[in-house]
């Protein structure tokens, strides 16, 4: 077994008390794709055993591979993008497909270089829409300094009303020498930084959902984070930056939970220090959603050594994608594997992964 496997197994014994994995569902339900517990269990109990023991830490969004010739290390990642509607305020599925995979690679400390892209198009999709999405991808690739080098297109029969599409991108980047990031590097006393206000992407999408249309100025925060990450690494060379995660599906809270579990570390953060834009807070309050569980597409969480925290934070604020970066919490000795929040009125509560997708409540 690899070192990564051991780490995960030791967490799993505490995290998983059921001897009969996946017994609750005979078929895939929506929650299996929600980025919460059910997704985690699917990876842990179905894919991982079937794929064999050499899979890199599956809680990572990208794998870091040593080249056989000793010629450095590559970060490799892939992701599929499904979103309704495909065009939304501030961007489209095309922006997500580029920035999402770029960011997964960037969180290993790598500089992404190339992407492949595969389209599964439904009958009925308007060519004008596809054209707009392709242009967005081209623009996003230039902004992220990656090349779209190969691809594939398939067409499937329309489901529901048709006209949708799925985009899968994969890509790799080069990990600079000496860069070693990951939950295993996290130590008590480390500081938790957040690159900006949360919840914008998820609520921008939610505002357009059928039957939920509400008026808002919210736009997606989709952005490539390579530049921000490299700026941070340059400020604190030599391991000062311990771990990075982009807070996409499952939101800020899910990222902290994954870091805590995978690093067997206790994490504490202060709720009031987590910036939530006013319109995100209002929409979440109205729908009964927790903004810390809402998706972002251009925000990262960093765990950094205490002695470099101020400098890294200042460096983040000097970068366009980290201007509103804040310190939100720290890694503690207690409650290993568990995230605790200080509430607005000064009490403490446990923060957990959502089970599946967040559901708007009844009243």
């Amino acid at each position, binding site marked *: 077994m690899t070192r990564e496997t051991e780490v995960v197994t030791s967490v799993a014994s505490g995290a998983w008390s059921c001897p009969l994995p996946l017994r609750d569902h005979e078929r895939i339900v929506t929650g299996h794709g929600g980025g919460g517990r059910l997704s985690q269990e699917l990876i842990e109990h179905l894919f991982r055993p079937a794929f064999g023991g050499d899979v890199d830490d599956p809680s990572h969004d990208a794998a870091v591979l040593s080249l056989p010739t000793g010629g450095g290390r590559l970060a490799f990642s892939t992701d599929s993008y499904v979103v309704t509607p495909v065009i939304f305020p501030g961007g489209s599925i095309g922006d997500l497909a580029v920035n999402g995979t770029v960011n997964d690679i960037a969180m290993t400390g790598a500089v992404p270089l190339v992407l492949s892209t595969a389209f599964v198009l439904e009958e009925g999709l308007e060519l004008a829409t596809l054209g707009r999405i392709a242009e967005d991808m081209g623009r996003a690739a230039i902004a992220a300094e990656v090349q779209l080098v190969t691809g594939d297109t398939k067409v499937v029969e329309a489901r529901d009303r048709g006209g949708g599409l799925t985009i899968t991108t994969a890509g790799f980047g080069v990990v600079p020498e000496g860069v070693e990031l990951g939950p295993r590097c996290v130590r008590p006393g480390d500081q938790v930084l957040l690159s900006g206000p949360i919840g914008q992407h998820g609520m921008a999408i939610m505002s357009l959902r059928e039957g939920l249309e509400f008026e808002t100025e919210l736009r997606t925060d989709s952005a490539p984070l390579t530049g921000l990450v490299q700026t941070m690494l340059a400020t604190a060379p030599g391991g000062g930056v311990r771990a990075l995660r982009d807070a996409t599906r499952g939101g800020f809270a899910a990222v902290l939970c994954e870091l805590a579990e995978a690093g067997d570390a206790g994490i504490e953060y202060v709720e009031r220090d987590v910036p939530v834009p006013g319109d995100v807070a209002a929409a979440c309050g109205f729908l009964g959603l927790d903004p810390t569980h809402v998706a972002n597409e251009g925000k990262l969480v960093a765990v950094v050594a205490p002695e470099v925290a101020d400098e890294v934070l200042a460096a983040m604020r000097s970068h366009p994608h980290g201007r509103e970066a804040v310190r939100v919490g720290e890694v503690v000795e207690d409650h290993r594997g568990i995230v605790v929040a200080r509430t*607005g*009125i000064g009490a403490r509560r446990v923060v957990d992964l959502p089970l599946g997708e967040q559901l708007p409540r*009844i*009243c």
Partner: protein
Amino acid sequence: MKYLDEFNDPELARQQFEDIERIVTRPWALMEVCGGQTHSIVRNGIDQLLPEQVRLIHGPGCPVCVTPLETIDKALAIAARDDTIFCSFGDMLRVPGSHHDLFQIRSNGGDVRVVYSPLDAVRIAADNPDKEVVFFGIGFETTAPANAMTVVEAERRGLTNFSMLVSHVLVPPAIAAIASSPDTQVNAYLAAGHVNVVMGTAEYEPLVERFRVPIVVTGFEPLDVLEGIRRALLQLEEGRAEVENAYPRAVQAGGNPAAQAVLADVFEVCDRPWRGIGVIPASGWRLSPRYGRFDAERRFEVQDLHVEESPSCRSGEVLQGLIKPNECEQFGTTCTPRKPLGATMVSSEGACAAYYQYRRLDVPEKVRT
């Protein structure tokens, strides 16, 4: 953010806690009726910061939790039909019936849709004339006006393919039932503010007189809840038992007369079983004869239901405030949000789910996942 930040202010909260500390001279137990309040209390840790003498008992006010298993099994049977589009609030999808939940119906090919506004279900019916469209109309008085408007609107549009599976429950009879119980430990009630937005406060006066208990209409943000608690304690310490409105920015004594008129037209009071508790007389609403043809139970003869409640689930005692969720042997072991034995572990307003989500450090190791 106006009306949100102010009611979460740490300095004002500290003052409230100090006031409460000063008021209290002996042990009291308060019940917050509404699951939304339970959630706010546990999420923000309000109970952790109250004086030891003040105990909060979590009440039955979670509509998802008290919807009878039989009704859920009916919903599942209707939702599984090929000719049917079943519309529900999102919360209900994960609630376990005897054998499965609505998510599983959907993954088996059933057309189950989450609606955010009940009127969306009517629009879906208009858009799909060849399908039966059924809306799962559940909730307390809070959701009742919007649910009632679906049948008014369906009638106005002349839709014959729309119906509603109704499981509506009422707060005052539930308070009366708990207050009548010889086992009750509750000294005062925090009423569910959003119910009073619709219904006003008049129907609580007879309860105060009959049971000599303070009832304080209370909101949901941390400072709202604290103000409700403070006023209830003040009444108890001064020996008063009155209906008091601690949520005046939303609640008027007369409630919302337009909504009440719709409710009187669309619904009639009936006896209603509450999951885990039993039948409470005159504690629910069903469609009035005028709108009876929109009743899904009448339209779909659902038979051969074998209702099986988990024998080890103690949610009834939780809902009546007799035990705390973490005092149940199943809590966090055989019963978790991933594999719930009862609805209180599922709903975002369920007391068991709130404890599981936010309180795992306070309970034994076994509960941590």
